[in-house]
Every structure is written in structure tokens, then in C-alpha cells.
């Protein structure tokens, strides 16, 4: 049988499909255990030949009921659960959650605490993007990239381990401060890591960015327009790749981000290639922010000293002074005392905007906590953009959206 060749206009997905003569359709079940879905995402696809006519994502395979759990424990007890939201950037989740509760309590963090948190956030962003780009490349057949980025991520995890005691489940922040101060000499080692990351990133860049196969696989595939990206609530790198100039680190600075100079990469067409470029540039900007933070790391306390009913006193005082012992006991058994109110806080996580909506009736336990996962919104656009794409584009699109099911299903 002779192979038919057709001119395909890559720009407009819906038009591409409509120009085809509709034939018999086939339904294909992809996932929930499929290497390209990066977790337990299931896609119910309708195919017409190689083209997708309908896509229905099925989520919830990783649903743990984090919001219900949050209503049944104190604020500090919930910190380990935030590790498991976006488990590729746990440090950033810790920070976002802590700031949300502190905002409700009206607490201001001392400069040293804020600077440490900024370093945590940016290292988490680097780690998440390194993984994102690595597996994205691997999905497209560029396996070498994965080896480069994973080696770097491994070094980063060693640094996390030194800082928090755990590689993945960091649980580093507390309401009103941190678990502990940074270890001695840690900043120097972070600096060394950042310095050696630069050349390796250039190598990844050289291998991938102008690689013809890579460009043919990603350029012009699944462009998401500005309007669609906003309407479907995309955030973070995915929104910026579509050309929307929005970054909460600059627009709504938290944790002292207004003190750092950094640029925000913006895409033009919002295709898979743009989403890759935006992430690559964000790694470089994060490196610059970490350098600045190390340079002007302030001295002083790393927890809010005035937060008597929220942050427990230091161990040596607990063991020697009666008042501090009682204070510690109250915080551990009843939780940090947070005033009643409603607060919504969101921060620029590596995957997008992670938000916490907390309704408090006072006391140590939230009345209601809603977690807004960026991956949940990123995936909700799939039924809109998938029709018209080819089945081989699916791993590319999924890789480019860089989602994580832990925070999608919560």
C-alpha cells in the first residue's frame, strides 16, 4: 500500500484535525502506570489513526486526603505532609506553607530566616527543573540529558541532606522559623555547587537546545495561546512560556524577594519548545539569586523571637527554665496558637503557583485548609489542547507541562 503524505499545518491543532477525513476511531488507555505520565495519571484517548480526537484525563490515583488530614492536626504536624505535595521540590512547599500560616498569624520573619528560605526555594527550583528537563529530554529520546541532570540533582540532594537531615522529605520549616540554622560551611558548598553547575548547564544547552531532532519534536507542538493559558489557570513556567509576564516573586514579593535582581524569561508562542527554554533560563536565574543570597546572608536570629505562642523556645532554655518548658509543652500539645481569620497565600513554586487557603477559628488546628496545586490546573487544559495532536506528541506535551501527581491529587 502506498504511503500517503499530507501537508500538516502544525500551528492550529483543531484545524489540523478537521482537515482530515474522519475514519473509525479507536480508544486507547494510557496509564495509570506508564513511564511517560510521570506518576499515576491516566489518559483515556480517542484516536483516529495517529491523531487524537478526544482526551479525558482520569486523576485521583494518588489522592490521600491531605486537606482532610490538615483539619485534624496542628499546623506544625502538617509540615511533613507538604513535602509530599510536589515531591520534586519539597523545600519550596515547606516554605510556602510556613509563610501562609505566618501570614495568618501576622508574623514577620527576621532577615536571616528569609534569606535561608530564599536559598531553599531557589535550590528546590533548580532541582525540580533539572529533573523536569531531564525526563522531558528522555521522553523525546535524548537519554544523555537525563544522565547529566540527574548527576547534578544528586549533588543537590546531598546538600539538602546536610541542611535538613533528609534527602526527599525535608520538612525544614516550622511555623515562625526553621527547623535549625544552616550548618557551618554549608553556604560555601552551595556556592561550589552553583559554580560547577554553570558549565554543565552549558553542556546540556549545547546538546539539546539547537539539536535538530529535539527542535522537530518540540517546536510548534501544542502551542497554548495567552488567552487559553489564563482561562485555564495555568501558572508558573507554563504561563510564562505562553507570553504572560507574571511571576509572583516579582509581582507579590514574599520572603524578601524584592531584594534580589533577577530576570523573568517569557516565551512567545507557548509551544513545547518555549516551555523548555523558559525552564532552562529559570535555572540560570535561580543560580544568580542563590549567589546573591549567599553574598549578603545576614546574621541574626533565624526564627521569630517575638512569636512566643507559635515557635518553641530553644532546647537549652527548655531544659533549664520553667516558663520555657511550659511554653514548649503548650506548643507541642496544642499546636501554635493562630488567630481566627481567612487567608490565602500563594507562592511561585517550580511547577507553578502553589496556594494555601486557610480558614482558622483560632487555636492550633485549621478549620479548613484548601491546597491549590498548580499541576491540577496544568492538567485541566489537556482535554482542550490534546485533540489534533499525534499520539507520539503525548509524552512530549506531558513532559513539557512538567506536572507532578502528588500535588495534583493531594
Amino acid at each position, binding site marked *: 500500500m502506498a504511503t500517503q503524505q499530507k501537508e500538516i499545518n502544525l500551528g492550529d491543532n483543531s484545524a489540523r484535525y478537521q482537515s482530515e477525513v474522519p475514519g473509525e476511531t479507536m480508544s486507547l488507555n494510557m496509564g495509570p502506570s506508564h513511564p511517560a505520565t510521570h506518576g499515576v495519571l491516566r489518559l483515556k484517548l480517542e484516536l483516529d489513526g495517529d491523531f487524537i480526537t478526544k482526551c479525558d484525563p482520569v*486523576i*485521583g490515583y494518588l*489522592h490521600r*486526603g491531605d*486537606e*482532610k*488530614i490538615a*483539619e*485534624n*492536626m*496542628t499546623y506544625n*504536624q502538617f509540615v511533613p505532609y507538604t513535602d509530599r505535595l510536589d515531591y520534586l521540590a519539597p523545600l519550596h512547599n515547606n516554605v510556602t506553607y510556613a509563610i501562609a500560616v505566618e*501570614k*495568618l498569624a*501576622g508574623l514577620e520573619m527576621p532577615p536571616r530566616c528569609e534569606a535561608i528560605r530564599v536559598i531553599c526555594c531557589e535550590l528546590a527550583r533548580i532541582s525540580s527543573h533539572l529533573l523536569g528537563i531531564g525526563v522531558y529530554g528522555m521522553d523525546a529520546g535524548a537519554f544523555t540529558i537525563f544522565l547529566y541532570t540527574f548527576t547534578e540533582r544528586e549533588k543537590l540532594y546531598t546538600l539538602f541532606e546536610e541542611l535538613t537531615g533528609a534527602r526527599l522529605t525535608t520538612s525544614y520549616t516550622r511555623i515562625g522559623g526553621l527547623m535549625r540554622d544552616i550548618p557551618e560551611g554549608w553556604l560555601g558548598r552551595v556556592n561550589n555547587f552553583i559554580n560547577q553547575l554553570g558549565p554543565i548547564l552549558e553542556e546540556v544547552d549545547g546538546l539539546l537546545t539547537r539539536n535538530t531532532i529535539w527542535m522537530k519534536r518540540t517546536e510548534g507542538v501544542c502551542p497554548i495561546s495567552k488567552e487559553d493559558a*489564563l*482561562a*485555564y*489557570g495555568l*501558572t508558573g513556567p507554563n504561563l510564562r512560556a505562553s507570553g*504572560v*509576564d*507574571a511571576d509572583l516573586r516579582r*509581582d*507579590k514579593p514574599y520572603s524578601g524577594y524584592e531584594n534580589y535582581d533577577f530576570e523573568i524569561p517569557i516565551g512567545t508562542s507557548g509551544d513545547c519548545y518555549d516551555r523548555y527554554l523558559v525552564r532552562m533560563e529559570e535555572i540560570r536565574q535561580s543560580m544568580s539569586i542563590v549567589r546573591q543570597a549567599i553574598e549578603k546572608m545576614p546574621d541574626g536570629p533565624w526564627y521569630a523571637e517575638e512569636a512566643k505562642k507559635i515557635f518553641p523556645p530553644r532546647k537549652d532554655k527548655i531544659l533549664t527554665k520553667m516558663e520555657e518548658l511550659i511554653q514548649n509543652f503548650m506548643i507541642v*500539645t*496544642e*499546636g501554635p496558637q493562630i488567630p481566627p*481569620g*481567612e*487567608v*490565602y*497565600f*500563594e507562592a511561585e513554586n517550580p511547577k507553578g*503557583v502553589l*496556594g494555601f*487557603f486557610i*480558614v482558622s477559628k483560632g*487555636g*492550633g*488546628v485549621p478549620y*479548613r485548609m*484548601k491546597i*491549590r496545586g498548580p499541576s*491540577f*490546573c496544568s*492538567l*485541566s487544559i489537556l482535554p*482542550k489542547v490534546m485533540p489534533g495532536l499525534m499520539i507520539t506528541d503525548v509524552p512530549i506535551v506531558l513532559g513539557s507541562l512538567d506536572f507532578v501527581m502528588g500535588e495534583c*491529587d*493531594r
Partner: protein
Amino acid sequence: MTLSFETLAKQFDSLTQRPSSDYDAFNVDADQLVALCEHLRDKEGFSLLVDVAGIDWNDQSPRFSVAYHLYSVIKQCYVRLVCACVGDESPEVPSIVSVWPAANWHERETYDMFGIHFKGHPDLRRILMWDDYKYHPLRKEFPLAGIEDELPAADVRERVDANVIAAPMMGGPFYAQAADHMSQREPSAADQSWAESNPKRD
């Protein structure tokens, strides 16, 4: 404050200000919700619907509310709209999928977790729990441990003859509850559905 409550209130008479610890927050009646959302999107530049959250007020009436968080990329500010649901038994609010398609999955999730019906939603079915699931887990009366239930897939159910069981809560999260008597302030799990004194759930 970038939103003027007075000008908005002229157009939407059900609008009242809501106490909030951070941004502008308004209460709005269900019948004016969609019009207000359209107004905020088109005239005030709130292009991004970031979050939809159901709230169960337990013994109050109206029992359920839905909180919407909007963000304006241009003005760089947030607004929170809270809409009380009509009816406590089968709560209902209008759907805003026509205004922001992003609301589609958020509303499905709120329906799944609270059983709030979104009138006019194009495809209101469960999203996180499986389709045949009988309960709405984020309602306050639902125990943290969960309720024993049948497995989702019928063929698997037949073969393995097992159920989805409630989680053992004896080691559950402990904290001291606010209570008048000192004796009741002993740290204990909030979910007491496992306790010996309680009758067994079937």
C-alpha cells in the same frame, strides 16, 4: 485596595464586605455570582481564577460556602468571593465554567469532596474519588479514618473478596483539644471513630 466596594455594590446589591486577613473579600448571593465574575473579568482585569474552595460550616445555616480566589495579572492583586450555597441538604451554586474554563476541574473537585452541585456545569462528575463512591469526604461528619466501602472495580471485588477498610486511627495525629476541663485536654486523636466506647459502624 484597588477594587472600590461602593462602585461594585451599586451594580450588585447583594454584595457585602467580608472580614479578611489579607485581600479584598466580598460575600455575594448565588444569583449574582456569574454576573459579578463576568464583570470582574471583563471590566476589572481579573483574568486568572486561581482557586475554588468549598467550606463546610457544620452546624451553621447556610451550611456550605464556596470561596473563589481571583488574581489580576495586570493589577497584581487578589480578590476573594464567597458565595453561600442554596440549601443545606443538597447545596447548590451556579457554575462559573462559562466565565473561566479553569473552574471546570475545581468545581468537579468541590462537588466530589462536599457534594455541592454546580448548576450549569457541563460535566459534573467525581474527579478524585471513583464514580460509585457514596460519600463526600471533606464534609465535617465524615471521619478522618474513612468508612469501610466496596472496592471500585466489580471484577476485582468478586475475585479478592475484600473491602476498602477504614484506616486504623489509634496512632492518629494527637493534640490537645480545646476543652473546659483539664482532664479532657489530654492530647488525643481528633478522630475517635475507632474508640471502644463508640458503637461499631457497619
